[in-house]
């Protein structure tokens, strides 16, 4: 089975999590840990870059649900970027675009964080 990796990074005060591989029930705890660490460090402006993510299951989406409220309460946000069409399809199917900022490019998300409308 394909593995899963989360690589944390930072860009002008914004935390970026780059996801790679296969995000399912089995690998979801790794993402959970990464989010928890950001929250513990009080880093609430988060971009998740999906460029190298090849699969996501409902359990993977569940992780995003688990943190969003906490992050927004602290006036932060999770913005999702660079999804492959089939990944976006899952997010769309389950109604995530109404709740999450989903953008084509990481740079656009950075811009949005820096210049909130």
């Amino acid at each position, binding site marked *: 089975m394909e593995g899963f990796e989360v690589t944390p990074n930072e860009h002008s005060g914004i935390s970026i999590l780059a996801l790679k591989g296969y995000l399912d029930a089995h690998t979801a705890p790794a993402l959970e840990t990464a989010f928890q660490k950001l929250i513990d460090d009080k880093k609430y402006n988060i971009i998740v870059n999906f460029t190298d993510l090849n699969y996501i299951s*409902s359990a993977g989406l569940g*992780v995003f649900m688990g943190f969003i409220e906490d992050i927004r309460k602290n006036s932060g946000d999770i913005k999702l970027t660079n999804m492959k069409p089939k990944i976006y399809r*899952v997010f769309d199917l389950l109604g995530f675009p109404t709740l999450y900022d989903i953008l084509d490019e990481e740079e656009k998300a950075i811009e949005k964080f820096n210049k909130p409308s």
Partner: protein
Amino acid sequence: MDRDLKEQYELQSLFDLSKVLNSSLNLKTILDTLLLTPMGKFLIGKGVVFLADEQHCFTIETLKGLPKSLIGKRLKIDDFPTKPTFVADAPRSPWQVLLEQNGIQLVIPILHDGSILGLIGFGPKSIGGEYTGSDLNYLYSLSNIAATAVQNGIIFQELHEANRKLEKKIQELNTLSEIDRELNSTLSSLDSKKVVNLLAYSIMGELMVNRCLIWLAVDGKMVLSLNKGFQDEEVDKIVSDASIVDHFSSIDAPVIVSGAKDDVYAKLREAGIAVLVPMRIETETKGMVALSEKITKLPFVQEDIDFLTILGNWSSMSIETARLIEEEVEKKKLEEELRIASEIQKQLLPETCPKIDGFEIAATNEPSLQIGGDYYDCIKLNEDEYILCIADVSGKGAPAALLMANVQASLHALVGIGLTIARVTERINEIIYRNTTYDKFITFFIGLLNVRERKLYSVNAGHNPPYIFHKDRSFQTLNEGGLIVGVMPGVQYSSESTELKSGDCIVMFTDGVSEAMNAKDEEFEEHRIEACIARNYDLPAQDLLEALIGEVKAFSAGCPQADDITALIIKVR
């Protein structure tokens, strides 16, 4: 001429419009075009489109120049107009009032093959005065031209929705199969915590819920095993309320808490719980999933409930399997641990006792199933001196066996270096104290038998006092010594010496003998040991030992042996 030109222009624009409309299958685009074209042509500031269903329920699909909040508004209209109609001329009815209030002047039906698809409404023209007859003709033609496109758009949208529903179902199936796969692939290392976590995330992702509680039945009681997102205080209120948790086991189908009447549900509602989903195996509720409302505030629909039901039941089966496997693994581990412990114990005990001129020695250890940590030893120091020892280590199983191994190693190392037995006991106390936690201790008796002097020097560190029986059946016990070994540093031990006469019989034992239980929960006790020895006093040491052990076993017949049975008998010839 001017008129002809204008008509020609209008025809052209209708034709263009028809091309635009029929090139799109997107209903929203079609309806917007249908609104915007005349609004541009006549400079109309307000427009609205209703679409009708077969029951003549009309829903506002799109609008221009009116509050967005009207979108989605539904009205039952049975007396809908079948030709262009001025709102002011229509009979008074809810739709007529609604349109009039919103400044809609003109209504054009959208008819396709004689059935009503919808209505288009327009506000007043900004210039050019009232709508003329030719305006109405133009708008009606437009509506007729658009009807086919609208019909196609509606069908396409239905198809699209059906497709989406199907895809959603597939996604749900994927989730179920993933959970199943995950559960099966990790069975060897599966713990119920993991399953519960997986269940929570799958639900949260699938239904856009951000708070979730899961209870699992443990020994018939519901125990909270996961909380994602709920405040601890809220959860405490629920968990500490027995009336709620006790009620769970009687829930056999998902409950939408907001619609339920019971008091129990009022409390759950207060805590922010919107849905309860029981996790069931056959007819038993093995767990409970509680969810907050969806983050989108949309209601839970039947499809959601179906999905949750399947997921809940599926997971509870897996958790049950996991629990059985855990139990099996635990049992295997325990068995293995005990096998090792038993192995250690066997190796630590002397295979045979040394032969001593003028003395008979017999010893036995009958380990219990759990390995009680009994120890005895008989070590020849030189021609004249022998160490006799009996001890009982606290605890059972491998930890007890390992501690016993420590005692044995220390004893063997210390007795050979010329220390008195009191010093040996003190050293062992230090070693055990330093190497174990305070709850580990040892009752320990050590005797130094001097064959030439015919004397027994002894130290008793909290062990059941050994006996010295005399020929006349009188006896004394060996109590001198000090505190049990291993609980306090720096303990000093004293020793006593007892002269041995011909016919004396030393009897050492562990509490596995004196505390052996019978079916009536009575203990064997010292008085039965004393009576047994007295009755069989003339037997050789080995036979006497067998008589004693035989009696203990007969006494506790039918009861499981709870502790090791160990005894050591030395007869003075």
